[in-house]
């Protein structure tokens, strides 16, 4: 079957989708967006976390057919998503969002580097780098999406808030302390980096 939905602000079509296929599979295998990780396939680990109509969900537990006509944001589109939010949301020009081609080539590029003119990272991504919250990196995309959503609705979360918001994301390197540091850092930077402003 064909599934048409919005990925990172752009309309996309996926063809020949098997009816029992998950959104995660469509993203990774049909659209070439491997940012969302495939690990447990049972909603246990959170590494496939994406936003579905703004809500964080495990993409491995969403049937592809269920996203017809809906909006998905993956980690590849997170920087642009955070930028849009910081600028007050909306997409008047119609050219915002992240194309699949861009997303497929997306690489972390710290804000301070010479590589690009624009800051290519969302505040939460920058905070993960600065806090050393990335070890093997496999859980990172899911944690970024979950943490970004937390800071969107709660600009100054307590430690308990952070723990609860990230309780569905497992890190097998057990690097949780640095991950908590990163979220605290992003929250503390909230005002200057506009990370914590409600969308």
């Amino acid at each position, binding site marked *: *079957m064909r599934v048409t939905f919005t990925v990172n602000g752009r309309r996309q079509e996926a063809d020949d989708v*098997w*009816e*029992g296929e*998950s959104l995660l599979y469509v993203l990774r295998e049909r659209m070439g967006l491997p940012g969302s990780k495939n690990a447990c*396939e*049972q*909603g*246990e680990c*959170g590494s496939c*976390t994406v936003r579905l109509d703004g*809500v*964080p*969900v*495990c993409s*491995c*537990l*969403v*049937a592809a*057919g*269920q996203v*017809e006509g809906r909006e998905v944001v993956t980690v590849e589109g997170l920087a642009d998503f955070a930028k849009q939010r910081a600028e007050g949301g909306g997409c008047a020009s119609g050219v915002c969002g992240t194309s699949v081609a861009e997303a497929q080539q997306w690489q972390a590029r710290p804000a301070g580097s010479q590589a690009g003119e624009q800051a290519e990272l969302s505040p939460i991504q920058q905070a993960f780098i600065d806090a050393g919250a990335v070890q093997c990196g496999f859980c990172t995309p899911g944690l970024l999406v*979950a943490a970004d959503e937390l800071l969107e609705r709660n600009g100054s979360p307590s430690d308990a808030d952070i723990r*609860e*918001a990230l*309780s*569905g*994301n*497992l890190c097998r390197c057990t690097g949780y302390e640095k991950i908590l540091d990163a979220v605290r850092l992003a929250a503390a930077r909230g005002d200057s980096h506009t990370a914590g402003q409600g969308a």
Partner: protein
Amino acid sequence: MDFLRPASWEEALAAKAEHPTAVPIAGGTDVMVEINFDHRRPEYLLDLNRIGELNEWEVGERTVRLGASVPYTQIMENLRAELPGLALASHTVASPQIRNRGGVGGNLGTASPAGDAHPALLAAGCEVEVESVRGRRMIPIDDFYTGVKRNAMAPDELIRSVHLPKADGPQQFSKVGTRNAMVIAVCAFGIALHPETRTVRTGIGSAAPTPVRAKEAEAFLTAALEEGGFWDSGSPIPPSVAKQFAQLAAGACNPIDDVRGSAAYRRHAVGIMARRTLGWTWESYRGNAHGSKGGAQCA
């Protein structure tokens, strides 16, 4: 496999009538696991996500009509005052990602004894609204669970909503697991005080082939509270009464040994949870005759 995507409740009922083997999928938190692991290959998947009314709830004068797909997150955030027991239970479901998708309809449809909502539904005393093209009926929760992962629904029926009485007294929920998140209950216990009728109702999860009430414990406690005049006096419940209540609750279990825990442990833990949740709710009742407060508490 066919993916059926009804745009309305009527279309969904028609599709279920035409294809009674169709597996309804809403949050997908159970169904997709089975498909991902190749444990199940349904001929038809019946997507319920497009049916808006399943995501809605109505707060009436005496009851809440809770749409089958209202996510646990919404129950926690919006219905804590009306449905405190269910809100507490909802908060123990898996993780934020899962609570954003899963709802009570899925727990009921799956009818696993480990579903977190069941003890709260049993303790509140509710009715499940199911419907087919043949008509609509209300199934009392006490008659709903018929066996391990079996319920009283006909193959052509779908769950529309659950009708729960608004809390008339304190309610509590307790669950045993190895951590506070992502845990299938080793066992769970729900309790609701009903000062209006001067009764107590309970629900036990993961400690019998189906979710069950501890009926003897309820009857004992209801009688003890009445005879001692406790509803009027608001006096503390004597330890002997709490102990007897706990023993009867443990006795209502019919658990098995499995990877999550032994039968003996489950029986013991249910007794402990019964005693503690009784204490919490009764303290709340004493503090506020119509109190239904109480944060999430560990067992």
